[in-house]
């Protein structure tokens, strides 16, 4: 996976692959039974494979455009979306139960007493956290009058994790219970 870089523009290859995948997904929404879906999916794959050796980029782009238009006119108005995907029925359903990590500081002492090992080391853990290199890097790289974008800078040294990885690591569980 070392070559997958995100760029500002999609290549033709990426566009074709995206068209193929979404066509397959919408075909799946139309053809409910798997054996019929498999039949039409093979036909679709054959249609894509017919032109895969096309070297003329103008013609290839025209084919892609025609493909996108055909997709647009034949798309399913309610495509199948996985329940946890954006637009699905249980997407973000448990957001209201997700609690950030700093709430642990607000627990009642009787509740903290249920986990003595963890809480005895927690202050030390927080000190280590503040001394972590990524906070220092972020403070060093942020301009004086505030950050310009929301994008975080990448790790500058070999083998490092990106800044604020702590918040990602200590994020709430996907299904909070």
């Amino acid at each position, binding site marked *: 996976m070392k070559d997958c870089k995100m760029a500002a523009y999609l290549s033709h290859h990426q566009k074709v692959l995206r068209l193929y995948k979404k066509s397959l997904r919408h*075909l799946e*929404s*139309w*053809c*409910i*039974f*798997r054996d*019929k879906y498999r*039949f*039409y999916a093979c036909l679709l794959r054959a249609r894509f494979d017919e032109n895969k050796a096309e070297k003329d980029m103008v013609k290839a782009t025209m084919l892609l455009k025609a493909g996108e238009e055909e997709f647009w*006119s*034949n798309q399913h*108005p*309610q495509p*199948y979306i996985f*329940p*946890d995907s954006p637009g699905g*029925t*249980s*997407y*973000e*359903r*448990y*957001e*209201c*139960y*997700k609690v950030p990590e700093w709430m642990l500081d607000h627990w009642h002492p009787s509740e903290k007493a249920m986990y003595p090992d963890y809480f005895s080391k927690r202050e030390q853990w927080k000190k280590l956290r503040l001394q972590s290199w990524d906070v220092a890097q972020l403070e060093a790289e942020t301009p004086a009058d505030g950050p310009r974008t929301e994008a975080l800078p990448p790790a500058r040294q070999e083998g490092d994790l990106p800044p604020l990885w702590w918040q990602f690591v200590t994020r709430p569980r996907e299904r*909070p*219970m």
Partner: protein
Amino acid sequence: MHPTSLMMTTSLMTIFLLLAYPVLTTLSPAPRAADWALTQVKAAVKLAFFVSLLPLFLFMNEGVEAIITSWNWMNTLTFDVNLSLKFDHYSIIFVPIALYVTWSILEFAAWYMHADPFMNRFFKYLLVFLIAMVVLVTANNMFQLFIGWEGVGIMSFLLIGWWYGRADANTAALQAVVYNRVGDIGLILAMAWMATNLNSWEMQQMFVTAKNFDLTLPLLGLIVAATGKSAQFGLHPWLPSAMEGPTPVSALLHSSTMVVAGIFLLIRMSPLIENNPAALTLCLCLGALTTLFTATCALTQNDIKKIVAFSTSSQLGLMMVTIGLNQPQLAFLHICTHAFFKAMLFLCSGSIIHSLNDEQDIRKMGGMHHLTPVTSSCLTIGSLALTGTPFLAGFFSKDPIIEALNTSHLNAWALTLTLLATSFTAVYSLRVVFFVSMGHPRFNTFSPINENNPMVVNPIKRLAVGSIIAGLLITSNVIPLKTPVMSMPPLLKLAALTVTILGLMVALELASLTNKQLKTTPTLAPHHFSNMLGFFPPIIHRFTPKLNLVLGQTIANQLIDQTWLEKAGPKALVSSNIPLITTTSNAQQGMIKTYLALFLLTLTFAALLVSY
């Protein structure tokens, strides 16, 4: 006091106390038991159900009805507002049914929501909703009905938005509130008219004094209120969106109890409606349109809950048609039988959804009959009851409605729409059963799917028993308020059954065509119309705000700025004076001949005036 009415009154007040007690205990700061929801709330509702059977049996045996006025709330010299409970034919039958259905749903919800950290709050909300519903149903005056009406609306908002981290759930909750509010405008209009013209909100006084009035305006208000609450065409989009809430909420509120509040209001006001042909026709046509439109939308939906939601909306349209036929008791019977099988359909859907790890799309279900035989059997029973299969619950209410529609000479168009909707009911019911229960599974293997938990199976079984025998029980034991039409040609009598069978045959043919999949996409235009819900939500949800914004912009620009500055203010002075100035100064250019001509002209006019 007569012992019968004493027993009646006592049991009815006991029901209120039993339901209110768990809610009141939540006000104390002491922490609640972990199983408070099951032991307190469900037990309270179950006990209240058994207590409510006593007035029901007294009513069935002796025909006892009671009106209890217990508290003078706001009494002026001319206007009284009391806490007044009416236990007549309608509320005595509805309250046990609502409590029975709620009991089953609460037991199911204890399983469905067991992993939810705020399950106790969920049960509290459901209980507050139930209390508001009972207040609405037993209200003897419009004010109390309004309290119940708003109460169920607010609880609906809170329960639809239960998972408030989800944007769609918040949108759906807001949608429910806004559409219900539009309906409330009608209700408040009707209440205001009644307060000013009939000088009372008490039902008995209203029915007596309204005889000499033209009631079109308040009845229109009531019909608008029912349109909002009962999701009739025009104010219906909130009901399918309300499926964002957890399945127990959909089962209780948006199928059995809350959505029938609008129809119940019209049933209560039926003595006022029955003499107003305009209101009756409006109900008939609105109901027919609703039932067909929503049945059409249900045909191509893929979310199991949305199909059942549209089915609910279609049946509500049918109830509205019945009101339009001046048969409120048939509408009420349909409310009662519908509660059973619709709640059961939702519970079966919830059981299947939970087993499949929150999968709601019927395209990814299948073969559930092997995995959850009880649930899928009850799904089939519920669907059969919904379509009006002879001698199940739905038959006893749906068939008389269609017969009454056939034998009335009112509106052939409404009849056509309703019969078409009845056949569509069979189509989408078969579609659900076909994709969910039959065939092979179209999902990956998950954690073992079973029905070992009695908390799932027992409520569904209970409601299945209700779906089978409720129609027979109610029609055998309760004297109808109006004589039903008895004699008609066989074709009219069998019309509903024929149309349903035709729909079933069409559905089977469509299912076999789906199995063959001769082409990838169906005919797109009708499919898109049905799937996108007639394009009604996108149009209305964009058109109305756009209209408001354009109006606001026009007011801000043209009314305020332009009026005060240009038309009425400084610029107006300028623009009105400059032409005068220009004309006057142009006339005075120093041209003698012009002056002389004008002078002679004026002289001639003056001379003519003097001489005449």
